[in-house]
Every structure is written in C-alpha cells, then in structure tokens.
C-alpha cells in the first residue's frame, strides 16, 4: 500500500487531537488599537430613538477624537420570539442559531443607516480583512454580533438556545483582532448579584474576575456564560467592560479607556 506523503512540519506527525504542542507560540496582535463595542438588542435597540440616538452621538464623538470603533449589534426581543417558536417545534440548536443570525443583522443595518452620514459602513462577518481600509478612511464599521457558527453551533447541556450569541461574537472578534478590552453597552450599570429588573435587592458588582464570577454561580449574569468561561484562556482580550448606555457620558468614557461600569477581568 502507498505510504502517506507527508509535508515536513512541526505538526506533521501529530494527530492534532491532543494538546501536545512541541513549539513556542509568540502571539501577534492583528489590530490591537480597535475598540470592539456591542450595542445591546433588548437593552438598547428595542428602546428605539430615545436610547439609540444619544449613544450614537457619543460614538461619533469618539470617532472624531480618532478612536477606532467597530460596532456589533445584538438581537433582542425578535430573537427571543423566534427562539421561543423554534424551541416549541423542537428545532436542533444549529437551526436555532441560524435563525438567530437574522435579527442582529437587521439591527446592524439600522445602525448603519443612522451612522451613514458619519461614515457608518455595514460589514459582513468575514470582512475583517477590510477593516484597515475602513478605519483609515475614518469609517465606523457596523456588523452583526452573531458568530457565523449557524448550523454548526453545538448544543448546550439542558437548553436549545445557542450558547454563542452576540456577546460571544463581540468577545471573539476582540480576541481575534488582539484588542485588550471588549465593551458592552447595555441598560444597566453592569453586573449585579441578580437581574436588577426583577430583583430590587440585587447589588452592583464593579470589579470581578471571571474565576470569582464562575464561583459565585449567580442565577443570572449580564453576559453570556461562554464569554466568562473563555476569558481566562484569551491571548489578548482579557477584560470585558459593561456600561450603561442610558447614562449620558458613559459610552464616551468607556471608549476613552476609563474604567466605568463593571469590568470583568481574566
């Protein structure tokens, strides 16, 4: 029988199924100065003009200061609606994740229309390779926050909601670009001990590590759980910042690098 014809490389003999690495890895950051920013779906976009316009004003102000911003949109109530129909029909998680791609895309397109006069440009998920051009031209790229996993999204234990949604997309984008902190604009001051909309006794947590957060095993958290799980393994994106977009000045402060809201550290 013919032998395997193998290209010599540090991995040529490897089954690549384990983690026995025999090389030194010195990471290279792709675009470390970019701020990757999420605009929440249910928390911001579903509030309409009253919430969205002031936030976009602050983003445009930051861009005018030379701060490079990429915006990623969340889903919100329409995503919850389709998830709930699909769950009733016992759709596999991969189908649910595919359905979940459409709403953040709509939201990204809405933001682009509003930002067009300030250089807002709609970007497809695989267009990271065009970012240098957009940012050098002074644009504000806007894209869906949903990772492109779609039908390839794994099922989570005990739920058919896709575990990687738009928070995960924001974190993974920041990690790929080599950005040290991902910023999430929501309608709360950050992380609480429980959902503050339902539990008035919930108290604010300003600083926490991902390890502490996992150990607390809170019934509800402000960000998707996979993001908190991935954070300690990140090469670059080692901080998650959650800010309240309904409070004037918070978004701009966060974009300038100030420690407002909650910061979750690896």
């Amino acid at each position, binding site marked *: 029988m013919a032998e395997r014809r193998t*290209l010599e490389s540090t991995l040529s003999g490897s089954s690549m199924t384990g983690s026995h690495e025999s090389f030194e*890895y010195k990471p290279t950051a792709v675009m470390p100065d970019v701020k990757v920013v999420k605009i929440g779906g249910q928390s911001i976009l579903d509030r309409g003009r009253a919430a969205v316009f002031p936030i976009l004003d602050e983003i445009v102000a930051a861009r005018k200061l030379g701060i490079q911003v990429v915006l990623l949109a969340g889903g919100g109530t329409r995503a919850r609606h389709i998830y709930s*129909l699909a769950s009733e029909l*016992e759709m*596999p998680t991969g189908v649910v994740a595919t359905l979940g791609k459409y709403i953040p895309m709509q939201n990204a397109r809405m933001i682009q229309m509003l930002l067009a006069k300030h250089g807002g440009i709609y970007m497809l998920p695989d267009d*990271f390779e065009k970012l240098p051009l957009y940012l050098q031209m002074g644009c504000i790229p806007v894209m869906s926050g949903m990772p492109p996993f779609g039908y390839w999204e794994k099922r989570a234990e005990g739920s058919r909601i896709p575990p990687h949604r738009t928070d995960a997309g924001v974190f993974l984008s920041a990690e790929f670009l080599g950005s040290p902190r991902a910023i999430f604009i929501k309608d709360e001051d950050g992380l609480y001990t429980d959902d503050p909309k339902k539990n008035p006794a919930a108290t604010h947590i300003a600083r926490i590590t991902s390890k502490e957060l996992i150990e607390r095993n809170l019934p509800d958290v402000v960000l998707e759980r996979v993001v908190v799980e991935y954070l300690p*393994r990140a*090469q670059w994106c080692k901080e998650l910042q959650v800010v309240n977009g309904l409070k004037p000045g918070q978004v701009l402060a966060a974009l300038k690098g100030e420690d407002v809201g909650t910061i979750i550290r690896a």
Partner: protein
Amino acid sequence: MSNLVGGDGRTHINSPLMRESLQNKDVLSSTDSERDLQIFPDVSLVSIGGQSIFDRGKDAILPLVAELVEIKKDKAVKMVIGVGGGTRVRHTISIAADLGLPVGGMAQLVGAMEELNAILLNTLLAPHGSMPMQRDHFWDLPLYFDAGITPIAISVPPYHFWEPPPEEGHLPTHGSDFGLFQLADVLGMKQAIFVKDEDGLYDKDPKKHKGAKKFGKITLAELMTQFPEDNILDQELFHAWRTAKNLKRIVIVNGLVPGQLTRALRGEDVGTVIVKEDARG
C-alpha cells in the same frame, strides 16, 4: 390584541422568552425537551480521511472511488460525503503558529486545504453523479438524492475568525471531524461513517504500538471511561457528542480494505461502532 408590549422603555413582542435574560438558568432549561427534530433520518454521512486516505495518493483514492461508484448504484443508499485535509492542514497551522497568528486566523485558513481534496474527489466522482454542496444548502438535499447526485459537503465548520480560544495549547479545535459530526447531528442523520486507514479505533495508536487493542462495538459512555490518548478522531467531536441529542451511531472503518464502507453504509457492524447509550441494540 397587539403582540407588542411596552411600559419599561423597551418594545417587546409577546412570547414566552419576552423580557427574559437568556443567561438565566431556568429560562434556558424551559426551552429544552427530550428530543430534537430529525430532518434527514435516512441519510448517512461519509467522511474520508485526509492523512489516512488522500495523502496516500492514487493507490488509496481510486479503489475507494470505485467502491463509491458501486454503492451509488443502489438508489436507496443516501449519503453526504465530506473530506479531511491531511498533511497540508498541519503544514498550514505550523507556519501560522510560528507567525503567531491568532487561533481564529488559523481557523480561517485551514478550510482551503480540505477544499482541495473535495475538488479531487468531485473530479473523480462527477462522471458518476456528484456535486460540491455550498456551505449550508441543506434544503437542496432532497433534490440531490432524487436525482442520484452525491453531495460533497464542506467539512470544516464556519468558526473562522471566531474560533474560541482552546482550553489547552494554541491550535483550533473545531476541525473537519467535528464539522462533519455536527452536520450529521443537526440534520438528524442515521449515522456518521469515518473512513480512515485503520480497522477502527484502538486503545493506543496502532501505528506505534504493536499490541494495540481495537474497540468493536462500544457505547460512548464506556469509551469515555477508557478514552485513548491518541485518537483517530478529534476530541471536540466526542465533547460535542455528549450533549448532542440526535446522532446515535458513529462508525470508523478502514478505507484501504475494500468493502468495509459498503457494509457500514448498509448498517452492518464493521470496524469500530460507537453508539450513544440508549441506542445499543
């Protein structure tokens, strides 16, 4: 009655998940049930190894193509084929890792190497009826099967730039084995057959250890208690299979031995058969 609900500054659509945090554990579990919809339960997925088959060249590839042509004569056999990338994937990743490219960058690159093997296979199989299937054009599958065309699927999952940071090391973990497993699971297929260059899965790498013992028919739970350190399939596949609801049967056969793939497609226990707990019969 309007389906739109306001009052808290946000506009909601009435649904059981309205206003809910999708991070809440109780909300998440309310979406679950014992089963997932099975879309194509009479279809088998066939994965042909990159290192194990394609990298051996003509002597390994042509007999397997001849076997596939024979199999195709039985119109009742419905299959989707995927291929691995083999040594070129390893070469790509070793260069990319030396350059320090992020794991998402590596994941974005590797799919091209599998695609080359898919083109080779399709070129050989096209005269007998085969076509490359676009990424997620699953809804064309009934048409393919009706027309006697065998679809060749893209095997690397579209994790691309968003490949999550691995638990250990620096390499992408969502490769072609996982991608094809996931395809079979999400579509509710009958089984996934992995065509390699060994008679099945062994407790040790049979290429390095003479006394390596082959698993015959085994449940996933049993296998997890004695998981081989060197595995012929990606770890991520087994990781995902544990929480998956649909796929019940994975078969590993030797593509260098004529007839094994044919038997596996007929549902016979050949090579190593791994079954999910409740499906052992």
